[in-house]
């Protein structure tokens, strides 16, 4: 492949990694507007000029859906921003979302050659730039679908796994229907990830583009209740089904005091704020209550979103309580950094033991215990062990538990023949096929909690497998005629 950038590698390396325009920490920790405005055109082109246009672009291997990163960066350098957007969309139908929420620092950017000596190319920010450029200039043209296939496929759940599978199958010409339990589309993207990281307009636009592929969408439809899987096959006439129902059921720690008023699962807390817009109460009808002092328990993205949301809802102090050390926190580095900047107080190596009540059954404090790190456990991380006699109490009026989620069992318990693991996830093979013919699954439902891009990858693999399954089935029918 040719080089498009005339600069010498040494010149490219001298350009510093470009940074996004961001709201200041003091300004943003009181509003729900997006933290980062991304790169502007000049910075994006300059950032693209940093890319070495490697012969062997290892960044592509780092991408779970193998976006042709090298080519799209070259197109940005040539200022063909729409060409770049379309290049990404060949592999990833949701670039405006992935450009914002993917952990690039552990995927494409960690392997970027430039990162060996300097900072890696800001691949994620470039992805976001072209997606935003396309949106703000209204230049999106839906892919033309030339082939039309009569077979019907049902997609259960409108999270990243489901919509990706739907988009891929619709592009191949299948009749695709999405069933979503909630009144809004997007799964965690809608009810979990806050607007200050992923604005609703962006999500709405990406979801609308899925609809524009001719995908039919039923909201307010709980598969397993409104209709069962078997009814979808036998009465609705679907020939294959993809399950992308996520891992939405919250788990609680099981410590005393969890039924007090003022204790939330992160899921409930974030759902009230994001899906139900409780931060606009009383202009919206769903209430939420946040104390002056808030404790969030956990160390993942969910905990980070809950604690940053608390500041925005008016908490004076927001603590993040995590039983391991900062290094072990599974949250994205950028989110941890943003949380710190915004004034979140990190209480590492600390484990809650009890939630304390005032006279009105409201939370008034949380009792914690200090931890120290012992030997590595099965996950390879050093296991935290309690320090005897180290209990102390933090006064808080709100406690939010972000300590893990598991799949919602509604479909598993109403569908025969689906193998389920001891963690409640659905068992699939390497092409996302479940133990039942014609039923495929992916995303958090099969992985437990993972990432947006891995859910999308599962959706793509499943779409390929469904295509093969349905083509074979169709051939079988024609042959036997």
């Amino acid at each position, binding site marked *: 492949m040719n080089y498009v950038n005339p600069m010498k590698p040494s010149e490219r390396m001298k350009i510093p990694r470009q940074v996004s325009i961001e709201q200041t920490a003091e300004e943003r920790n009181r509003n729900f507007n997006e933290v980062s405005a991304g790169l502007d055109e000049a910075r994006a082109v300059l950032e693209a000029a940093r890319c070495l246009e490697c012969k062997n672009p290892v960044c592509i291997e780092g991408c779970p859906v193998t976006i042709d990163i090298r080519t799209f960066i070259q197109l940005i350098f040539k200022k063909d921003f729409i060409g770049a957007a379309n290049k990404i969309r060949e592999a990833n139908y949701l670039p405006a979302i992935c450009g914002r929420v993917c952990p690039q620092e552990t995927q494409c950017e960690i392997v970027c050659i430039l990162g060996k000596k300097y900072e890696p190319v800001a691949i994620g920010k470039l992805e976001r730039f072209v997606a935003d450029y396309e949106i703000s200039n209204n230049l999106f043209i839906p892919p033309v679908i030339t082939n039309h296939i009569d077979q019907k496929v049902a997609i259960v759940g409108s999270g990243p796994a489901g919509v990706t599978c739907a988009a891929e199958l619709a592009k191949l010409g299948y009749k695709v229907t999405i069933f979503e339990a909630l009144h809004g589309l997007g799964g965690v993207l809608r009810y979990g990830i806050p607007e200050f990281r992923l604005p609703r307009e962006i999500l709405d636009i990406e979801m609308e583009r899925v609809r524009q592929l001719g995908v039919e969408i039923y909201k307010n439809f709980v598969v397993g*209740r409104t209709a069962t899987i078997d009814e979808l096959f036998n009465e609705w006439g679907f020939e294959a089904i993809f399950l992308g129902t996520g891992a939405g059921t*919250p788990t609680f720690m099981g410590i005393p005091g969890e039924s007090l008023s003022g204790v939330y699962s992160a899921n409930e807390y974030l759902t009230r704020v994001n899906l139900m817009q409780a931060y606009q109460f009383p202009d*919206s009808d769903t209430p939420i209550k946040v104390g002056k002092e808030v404790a969030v328990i956990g160390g993942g993205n969910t905990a980070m979103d809950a604690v940053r949301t608390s500041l925005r809802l008016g908490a004076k102090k927001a603590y993040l309580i995590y039983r391991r050390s900062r290094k072990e926190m599974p949250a994205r580095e950028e989110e941890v950094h943003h949380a710190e900047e915004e004034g979140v107080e990190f209480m590492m190596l600390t484990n809650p033991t009890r939630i304390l009540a005032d006279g009105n059954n409201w939370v008034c404090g949380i009792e914690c215990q200090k931890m120290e790190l012992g030997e590595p456990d099965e996950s390879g991380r050093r296991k935290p062990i309690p320090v005897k006699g180290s209990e102390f109490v933090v006064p808080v009026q709100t406690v939010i538990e972000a300590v893990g989620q598991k799949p919602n069992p509604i479909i598993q318990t109403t569908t025969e023949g689906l193998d389920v693991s001891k963690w409640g996830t659905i068992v699939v093979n390497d092409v996302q096929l479940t133990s039942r013919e014609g039923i495929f699954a992916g995303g958090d439902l099969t992985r437990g909690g993972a990432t947006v891009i891995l859910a999308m990858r599962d959706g793509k693999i499943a779409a390929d497998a469904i295509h093969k399954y349905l083509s074979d089935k169709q051939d079988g029918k024609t042959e036997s005629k």
Partner: protein
Amino acid sequence: MFPIISKEILSSTITKYVIHAPFIAKKRKAGNFVMLRVVDNGERIPITLVDSDSNAGTITLIVQAIGKTTKLLATKNVGDSILDVVGPLGVPTPIELHGQIVCIGGGVGTAEVYPIARALKDVGNTIYSIVGARSKDLIILEKEMGAISKEIYVTTDDGSYGRKGIVTDPLKELLDANKDIQAVYAIGPLPMMKAVSNLTKTYSTKTLVSLNAIMVDGTGMCGGCRVSIGGKMKFACVDGPEFDAHLVDFDELIMRNRTYVDLEKIADERCKLTPSIAALAGGVK
């Protein structure tokens, strides 16, 4: 969108709605509920499915206007639509032949116990029913309950109708007089269900209640509806809403349900600023 096909005022605050929702109509069983959202930015609230007609594709709801969302709903008329209705949710009531059963409805809870009583009657149980409310105006479905019951007792707190007192008065007499009563189903305000449960415990009579925990999604995704059943955490929307009364921690739930009282009042105050809701609220206490 879910169009309102008919609307009937049952009392100054209680209204019956028939709504077009064909998928739900087809699958509804006694004990199921729906989550509904009247308008964009509105709250999702749980309401019991009182009846359904799968041929007409309709469901029946009976709703008491007590706060922002239920009052807003009351302003909607035939021809208007409800934005979101999802269901049928919750574990349906196991409909078994017990023999003789008491079914108790308190206030709008009568609308919730009626479909269960009817289904239990259809499989051959003998039903004794008790319908109670604060005052005459809030007694609903007396005729319907009467039609499926061997005997029906009506109580009002203020004595404005039926017998003065609370539902546990006739219940105690029934349990004393009839040793063959196998089970009690009670749905109504939490203090009422708690009183029934305390009473039937002393007779060791199996008792089922439907818990009106505060819900957000209604599908098991938030845990906001968690209740303590025999010391274990359960989600009312997916594990219930029906539970063995003798295992329920009523006091805990009564406290939890007070979490938002002050904010609910603010939302309710807002209704008064909206002319159409205020007009209706004029007739509402």
